[in-house]
């Protein structure tokens, strides 16, 4: 092993460099220019994102602890794009609220550390690295959720997140230890070869699944979601709902398809039942929500249920459709969160009722929101339609027509509550509608990127072909 093989960890190293640079910058930035850290961080992360797109070799490091290949690399880029959009969308909020209390740099350091954890998690080749990544990705987010220290709800959300997360990783670790007990290894590749059907290994798999299920907020591990989203700053809620969830989905797919491939007939049933429960509970609870953040929380639970329809396929088609859907979901959900963020910052309002008459005062924001919700609901021609259609195709390819049927019932239920928001924005008129405001450059950029994604990702088919190719090449 020579030093050039460290370039396989280019994402990690470059992100670490950014974190260190920010720590140094914190020392040198003069007090009256402390807002410039936001520009610096976004600039550095922008470069990091662009550099990430350079191609990478397929190989593993540290005796198999760390691995990378085309698909993992692609997924890291997806996460990067998502984080970049979140940073752009939260720049104004940071400038106005956080930088003023001298906590701007920490915000970025915490967020980037968490992202670093996710890199390691999805690149992990054994359970040790996986667990390190999981913890590193969770702990900073709990701090971030409690970031608005002046708000009690924010602190509550931080506590809730850290307690549930600790419990979930504990359970996960317990499951891992059982797997170690039965297989005698923590390396994915070795476990794949020797894992068999025994009570202990099944229990290990289930407990491990529960730990990740918490991060993806699958039912019945979803109880923290709505409360945490509601209390946390919006940028953190969106981070939790797309980045954190996306990374967890990815590693779950990888592990189920590699490590636990030989006991697929067992986890299929589990995924089947959890998919149904997640879709129904997420959707039914979303129906009555008044707060946009809680609303999006339950909507994101329901979306996780749809993702399981792709996972149940168990082959390259499953990986491809899930990754494709997550990619689309990142853009759709971030567009929705971006609008919520913009409105919350300008008008301080977060309830669906406050959105009444929004189209007449802020047509562009309303249109972005409409596109985002249509994409989440799966209405053509925006990208969400393609993502959902392919997920359902994946499930149907294994003959799970009943599951697909239940899923489409849920799509219809979800359409109802997405239309409620559209009803408020477009159909209603209100004397107290949020007055017209202009977004700043960063926010606009953040929204434009998401809109381009929502409109383009579905119609541009080579992207899916590329993802499918990467998935087929995945060992």
């Amino acid at each position, binding site marked *: 092993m020579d030093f050039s093989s460290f370039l396989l960890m280019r994402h990690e190293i470059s992100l670490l460099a950014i974190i260190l640079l920010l720590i140094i910058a914190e020392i040198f930035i003069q007090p009256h220019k402390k807002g410039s850290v936001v520009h610096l961080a976004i600039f550095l992360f922008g470069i990091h994102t662009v550099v990430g797109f350079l191609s990478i070799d397929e190989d593993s490091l540290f005796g198999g602890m760390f691995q990378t290949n085309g698909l993992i690399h692609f997924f890291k880029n997806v996460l990067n794009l998502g984080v970049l959009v979140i940073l752009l969308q939260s720049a104004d909020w940071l400038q106005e609220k956080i930088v003023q209390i001298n906590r701007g740099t920490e915000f970025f350091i915490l967020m980037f550390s968490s992202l670093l954890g996710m890199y390691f998690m999805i690149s992990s080749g054994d359970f040790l690295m996986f667990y390190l990544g999981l913890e590193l990705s969770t702990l900073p987010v709990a701090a971030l959720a409690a970031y608005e220290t002046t708000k009690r709800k924010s602190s509550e959300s931080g506590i809730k997140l850290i307690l549930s997360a600790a419990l979930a990783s504990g359970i996960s670790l317990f499951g891992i230890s059982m797997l170690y007990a039965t297989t005698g290894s923590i390396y994915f590749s070795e476990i794949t070869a020797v894992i068999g059907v025994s009570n202990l290994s099944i229990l290990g798999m289930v407990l491990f699944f529960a730990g990740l299920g918490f991060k993806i907020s699958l039912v019945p591990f979803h109880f923290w979601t709505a409360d945490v989203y509601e209390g946390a700053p919006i940028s953190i809620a969106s981070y939790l709902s797309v980045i954190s969830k996306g990374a967890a989905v990815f590693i779950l797919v990888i592990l189920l398809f590699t490590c636990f491939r030989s006991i697929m007939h067992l986890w299929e049933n589990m995924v089947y039942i959890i998919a149904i429960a997640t879709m129904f509970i997420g959707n039914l609870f979303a129906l009555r929500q008044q707060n946009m953040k809680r609303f999006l929380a339950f909507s994101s639970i329901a979306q996780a249920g749809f993702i399981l329809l792709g996972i149940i396929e168990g082959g390259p088609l499953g990986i491809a459709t899930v990754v494709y859907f997550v990619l689309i979901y990142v853009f759709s959900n971030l567009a929705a969160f971006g609008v919520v963020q913009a409105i919350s910052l300008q008008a301080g309002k977060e309830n669906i009722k406050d959105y009444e008459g929004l189209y007449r005062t802020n047509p562009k924001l309303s249109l972005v929101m409409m596109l985002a919700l249509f994409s989440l609901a799966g209405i*053509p021609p925006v990208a969400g339609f393609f993502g959902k259609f392919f997920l359902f195709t994946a499930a*149907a390819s294994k003959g799970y027509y009943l599951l697909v049927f239940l899923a489409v*019932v849920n799509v219809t239920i979800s359409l109802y509550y997405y239309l409620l928001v559209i*009803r408020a924005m477009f159909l209603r008129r209100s004397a107290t509608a949020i007055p017209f405001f202009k977004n700043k450059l960063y926010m606009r950029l953040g929204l434009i990127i998401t809109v381009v994604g929502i409109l383009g990702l579905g119609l541009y088919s080579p992207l899916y072909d590329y993802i499918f190719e990467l998935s087929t090449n995945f060992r």
Partner: protein
Amino acid sequence: MSMDILSLFIIVPVITVLALIFAKELKQSRIVAMLGSIVQFGMAINLVFAYFNERAINSDIMVFTKDVIWYKHFNIHYSIGVDGISVALLLLTSIVVLAGVFISWKMNDLPKEFFISLIVLSIGVYGFFISLDLFTMFLFFEIAVIPMYLLIGIWGTGPKEQSAMKLTLMLMGASAILLVGILGIYFNSNSDGGVLTFNILEIAQVDIPLEAQKLFFPITFIGFAVIGALFPFHTWSPDGHASAPTAVSMLHAGVLMKLGGYGVFRVAMYLLPEGTLHWSWFFIVLSVIGVIYGAFAALKQTDLKYINAYSSVSHLGLVLFALLMLNKTAWNGAILQSLSHGFMTALFFALIGMIYERTHTRDVTKLGGLLKVIPFISVVYVIAGLASLGLPGLSGFVAEMNIFVGAFQQEDILYRVVTIISVSAIVVTAVYILRVVGVMLMGPVKNEAFLNLSKVTWYEKTGILLLLIPIVGMGVAPLWLSNMILDSLEPFIQGLL
């Protein structure tokens, strides 16, 4: 082929929408929308002639085909082509859209958004009729449905929010079920060892296993038939029509509901012939209930829009009924009925909109003697009514004649009975049409305010004439249309009979 005349049916409306985004206020918006629709209308006329020329030298099932691969892994193509049936329905669509733009000439509230939604809806309809690929067909189907929510919700009247939500959820729910049916067909399209495909023409060559046909036929049928107002899934239609603004009712009843019959015929029945035979009795019963129930419900209503909406349930029930009669003449009648009902009901809704705009009521009991005050509208209303009850010389007669002659050729006792039952609906139709004509148009002027109703404007007249001419034309000279349809029924006959 030098030019792709079918893709233009997508491209021109898209350009219209883009132009509308930059339009300002009502005047520019309606001009842009009108120009776009006129171009579409011209293209549709041109397509009819081009179709006849092409048909003379080309005996393929579909002509003007074009095929571009889209998602190669799923074998999804952008695949388009038309036969006589789709050409006729494209013509219908372009006329109704153009008439709808004229009828909405004075749309004051958010005019730009209104016309954009209207044109987006028409993109969905055009795309649906030209698609040969189940995926794109489904995609366009949903594009056609979703603008209805905004169109009814923003510009509607009465309990518009509730009606819009009900309509959207029922139609999108149906399309969601349809998705299951389409996936079922897709994953059985390699039954003879080929590759999975969404292409309708290729699937039609495949023998899908009997069990799959029995399972997926009802799912696909219901998925399409909900938008064709199949009893008992028709409940979205009266509320939706009553709340919708005039042009939207026109487009919806005139065009959108035709997607149901077309989809049932082209997808459910054509691709799953054995499923059709297995299930036809069940859906025949439902459609006959729809025919009778719609007619009697219309009898009892006093709101003009509700009368017309229930009459649509009845007439479109007849379309499904005729399709299920599995008979060439009846099929011909079903397509003719789709066209005839499209023009007729669009005309009805346009007239009701004009009456409502002037009298501010749609309640038949409050209206009276309109023939004396607004003669033009009243006379056209009578003509449309006569077409609706099937008077010879107008479009309704041609269609219903074909349907019942065809239906009665089936010798099975069930078919005989249901045919007799559904024929009786014509009598009921006559009753409710003539009752409205009598109460609303004849007699003394009930309200003094009616004496100075405003005259019919040029744009209203244009809209009316656009719809009236085809009704008379179809009634007087139905043969060219009928021949165009009959030619295209050949593959269905080979597949199903």
